[in-house]
């Protein structure tokens, strides 16, 4: 009886609390526009659609040492792949697949699309190493090679559904996923694995631009 009574009191107290919550200035309801102005994160996020991976607040450096964000890719159809320069197995194949996808694109889209490689190996893949990779693979200006912090790489991988792990010898195990983004930065297609699917990927990329 006593227990039930105190439970009832507690419950009532909580209900009362629930109804009376907040009141701190930050929590005060405001019009959406005011909130955009007062909350920097909300303002930045509002620039992109709710499904855009460009909402990710992560900074990268390209192989020329320039700082950039994923949002810089906005407006272009994109193929993005996570890789590492010293990979001797899957990564070179994925780059070849991206080149094949590019060759399958209609001319008008082929010249607008961006082909993005983001390295897992933030310790060893310096801008200089990435620049060397670009030269070795003859990647032209439509290819964007990026290196981020541990955090930005891990968050991007999570958004793309890419799992990875550094092994004892320093190499990385990783999922092999090519992701197609529309000009808003929304994932529209993924080619998973290393076989086939290039026509579908190219078609998905072409379909992002009307």
């Amino acid at each position, binding site marked *: *009886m006593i227990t039930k*009574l105190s439970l*009832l*009191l507690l*419950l*009532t*107290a*909580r*209900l*009362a*609390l*629930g109804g*009376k*919550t*907040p009141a*701190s200035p*930050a*929590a005060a309801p405001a019009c959406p526009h005011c*909130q955009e102005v007062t*909350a920097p*994160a*909300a303002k930045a*996020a509002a620039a992109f659609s*709710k*499904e*855009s*991976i460009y*909402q990710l607040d992560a900074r990268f450096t390209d192989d020329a040492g320039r700082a950039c964000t994923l949002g810089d890719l906005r407006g272009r159809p994109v193929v993005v792949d996570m890789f590492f320069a010293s*990979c001797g*197995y*899957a*990564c070179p194949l994925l780059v070849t697949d991206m080149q094949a996808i590019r060759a399958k694109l209609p001319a008008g889209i082929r010249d607008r699309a961006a082909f993005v490689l983001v390295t897992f190996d933030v310790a060893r893949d310096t801008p200089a190493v990435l620049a060397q990779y670009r030269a070795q693979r003859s990647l032209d200006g439509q290819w964007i090679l990026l290196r981020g912090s541990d*955090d930005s790489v*891990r*968050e991007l*991988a*999570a*958004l793309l*559904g*890419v*799992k*990875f*792990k550094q*092994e*004892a*010898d320093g*190499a*990385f*195990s*990783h*999922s*092999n*996923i090519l992701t197609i983004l529309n000009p808003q930065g929304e994932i529209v297609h993924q080619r*998973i*694995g*290393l076989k086939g699917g290039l026509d579908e990927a190219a078609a998905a990329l072409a379909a992002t631009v009307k």
Partner: protein
Amino acid sequence: MATLLRSVQRLVPGLALAVALAGGALAVPEAAPAARLIRIPGGVYTPLFRTTKDSAQITVAAFLLDERPVTNAEFLAFVTANPPWRRSQVSRLFADSSYLDYWTGDLEPGARAPANSPVVRVSWFATRAYARWVGRRLPTTAEWEFAAGAGYTRPDGKNDAQLNRDLYAWLARPVPDVQPAVARGRPNFYGVRDLHGLVWEWVDDFNNAMVTGESRADSGLERDLFCGAGSVGAKDTADYAAFMRVALRSSLKANNTTTALGFRCAKNTAP
């Protein structure tokens, strides 16, 4: 009974107000609230699973770990200060549709989310954002498992019979509708509580789990591997709870939220 209830109902408005006032002062922390950090000395963690390319043992440097999981009250302070992380505003990319869905409202945890109970139904992205906000980070798998490997009285808890009994008793219990309060669990050797027995917890590198060790395999095969090749490589097949943690981590996506999955923060030791 009925009479008593009626008299309670008559009394309640005044009582409730008094409790609400007292509780209100406690429930809204002034600044970023945070659990006490416990120093975990460095050591060696032996992963449950490994492939032929992995190290048999991972050296864990000394680090600081929250004494107990993050609570509803603390998470409320976070979403209050960071509107994009409120339930109604968060992007589905960063938290799925059950994010905080046991709360009454955006800023009202309500009766199913007591202030001192662990926050659950939070995504990996949200927990990382919280950790950054309080100047901390999520623990890595190796750190979490190293700390959680301790018994009540010894750094190696493998043969701690009482710990194992408590752990399996917890695993056998269904998830309660309302989580009990944090920090009620018996502290382990280091003084950390609730690593076992309250909720599952996110780790920073959850998306390491169950990669195959071969780049050519795609991530869709992981579940198969857990049943087949994965179990062959396990060091200790008796550690059923550790198997469950690995299975849970490998099944999660970064925007997933679920009933009994919360988190705690960690921090580097001062250099």
